[in-house]
């Protein structure tokens, strides 16, 4: 199967996907001892879709998010925006494209200048991209943006430290939306928030996505949030894709042994569900020295000797469902 088949969205629509990632690689460190943070990842995001990127620390999800926006250059493979390779764009064209592609970070406090009033921070985003014309315009737009994320116009005169964590994340969202993007990378936007505030921000993201027809790459380690917000999910482990599937199918019937372990390890807020899952053994191996063959085999309960030989490729196991595991027999028969 060619790389292109994997990249096609599940419904086989003829449209060019908004974002397409092909065999993406991002290695850090030296040539002799590369840290393979992302190692051959392919997926596509069609217009209006929210694609979830899940995996544990070190799986490469944040690196992928940054590489997709060219905040980090890839060391191999391609990122295509509407079919065009963004690595090949000139500085000026990339700058123009930046207003179409935005990011929301995990810790909004770290991404806001503590000495800058919120209005000025939002105004800067507007002027950088030449989006405000005429006197009085930026103020009106800033008020509109604050209103959109559930804050008030007078908040523009305040400094970041005057806000709570949830409010700061709303400001982070307003800043990303200021330049009218069509694609947003949301990198763990909820993990710094308390549960009661998390639900407010989830609703805000879902509303804005609907109103502004946003396409989203939603990076998270919280499977429940991903299940709620995403249309399709990419499961990563040690820089590689283990499984890609539509959300409902993935959660109802995970195919890859890693996806199953991940779902089983996530405790459900219901004491009547008997917890029988035996936790996965060991730690994630080092990306400097990943296991031979399948990178998950050192922790996989189903691994055989053959798993150490070849790196499994992502294959379509069921319509729209891709999994990278040589134990296809078990994947299809034993799946719950």
């Amino acid at each position, binding site marked *: 199967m060619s790389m292109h088949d994997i990249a096609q969205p599940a419904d086989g629509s003829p449209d060019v996907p908004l974002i397409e990632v092909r065999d993406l690689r991002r290695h850090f460190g030296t040539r002799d001892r590369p840290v393979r943070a992302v190692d051959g990842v392919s997926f596509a995001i069609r217009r209006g879709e929210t694609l979830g990127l899940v995996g*544990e*620390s070190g799986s490469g999800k944040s690196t992928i998010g940054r590489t997709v926006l060219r905040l980090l250059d890839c060391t191999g493979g391609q990122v295509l925006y509407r079919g065009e390779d963004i690595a090949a764009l000139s500085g000026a064209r990339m700058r123009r494209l930046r207003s179409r592609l935005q990011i929301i970070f995990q810790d909004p406090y770290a991404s806001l200048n503590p000495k800058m009033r919120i209005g000025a921070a939002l105004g800067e985003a507007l002027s950088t991209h030449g989006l405000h014309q005429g006197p009085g315009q930026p103020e009106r737009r800033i008020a509109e943006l604050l209103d959109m994320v559930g804050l008030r116009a007078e908040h523009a005169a305040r400094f970041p430290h005057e806000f*709570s*964590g*949830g*409010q700061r994340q709303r400001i982070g969202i307003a800043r990303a939306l200021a330049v009218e993007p069509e694609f947003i990378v949301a990198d763990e936007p909820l993990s710094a928030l*308390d*549960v*009661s*505030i*998390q*639900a*407010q921000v*989830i*609703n805000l993201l*879902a509303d804005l996505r609907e109103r502004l027809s946003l396409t989203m790459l939603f990076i998270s*380690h919280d*499977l*429940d*949030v991903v*299940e*709620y*917000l995403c249309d399709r999910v990419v499961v990563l482990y040690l820089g590689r894709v283990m499984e890609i599937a539509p959300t*409902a199918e993935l*959660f*109802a019937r995970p195919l890859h042994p890693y996806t199953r*372990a*991940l779902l*089983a*390890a*996530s*405790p*459900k*807020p*219901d*004491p*009547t*569900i008997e*917890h029988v*899952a035996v*936790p*996965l*053994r*060991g*730690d*994630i191996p080092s990306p400097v020295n990943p296991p031979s063959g399948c990178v998950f085999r050192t*922790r996989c309960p189903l691994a055989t000797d053959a798993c150490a030989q070849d790196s499994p490729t992502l294959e379509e196991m069921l319509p729209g469902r891709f999994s990278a595991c040589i134990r296809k027999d078990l994947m299809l028969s034993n799946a719950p």
Partner: protein
Amino acid sequence: MNRLEVRHLCTSFVTDEGRVDAVADVSFAIRAGGTTAIVGESGSGKSVTSLTLMRLLPRATRTQVSGQALFVTRSGQAVDLLTLPEPQMRALRGNEVAMIFQEPMTSLNPVFTIGEQIAESLRLHKRMDRAAARAQALRLLELVEIPAARQRQDEYPHQMSGGMRQRVMIALAMACDPTLLIADEPTTALDVTIQAQILTLMRRLQAQTGMSILLITHNLGVVAHHADDVAVMYSGRIVEAAPVRPLFAAPQHPYTRGLLDCLPGKSHAAGQPRPARLFAIRGQVSSPLAPPPGCAFEPRCDHALAHCRDAMPALVDTAPQRQARCVLVPAARDA
């Protein structure tokens, strides 16, 4: 038998901007061999509660503590953790009560090997000699399932993963054969597969030693599977307390109900379509310097009545083993 009984615990800090009641009138119990969880969001006072019990609050702050914390030692003697003279308290910390924290890296000394750190604790508290302490340290590392423990006892904390460091912290805690382990967000910094390993390990150690656990967490999934009794805290006070199953099956306080309802994992049953909107608790926690006049949750409560603003409701018995702090939840008739 209760291992620990906390009665009317209050901890306040006097700051330049005014007095903050971080913990106010908190009462709960931990059964011998049982796990009591304190759940709450940032600023609810759950960590201050545990630090007050361990008497680990920084002395520099102008802190006022009142109430009682009756702890039953291994020999059956009841002592009040809040008034015990410091030398006895230090002995208790080494031999009866242990604590593990969210970030093991900040609790481990970066310039000593993990074997040395565990051995130091054994020499100090158990008066072991160097060789015996090193041998016991190795046994403890094996107890917490650190692979290749013999080699790893000579490693430094930075050479280990977050999960392994938390195992080391548990080994350190187990060095004093605790009858009570206070675990403050022990798995919050860890990935879910590692969290599952650590929680399974804690359960196994509890089953083997019969220790009690005070589990402090914000994660309701962890509470559901690892606690026997639960106290929900909001703005320094317990708003609801119950055994785990009744609490999740029929939460009584509007805050507890809201917390459970706003979880995306509980928004729809398996196979059902997801709802367009999640339930959300509106607003945010009030500043501890300017608490609302009545019930602390009233400004965010969908069911609030006018008189909720008049006074803080009392924590009343609502059913056997259940308490709630809300005027809408009727007290049990026999209470």
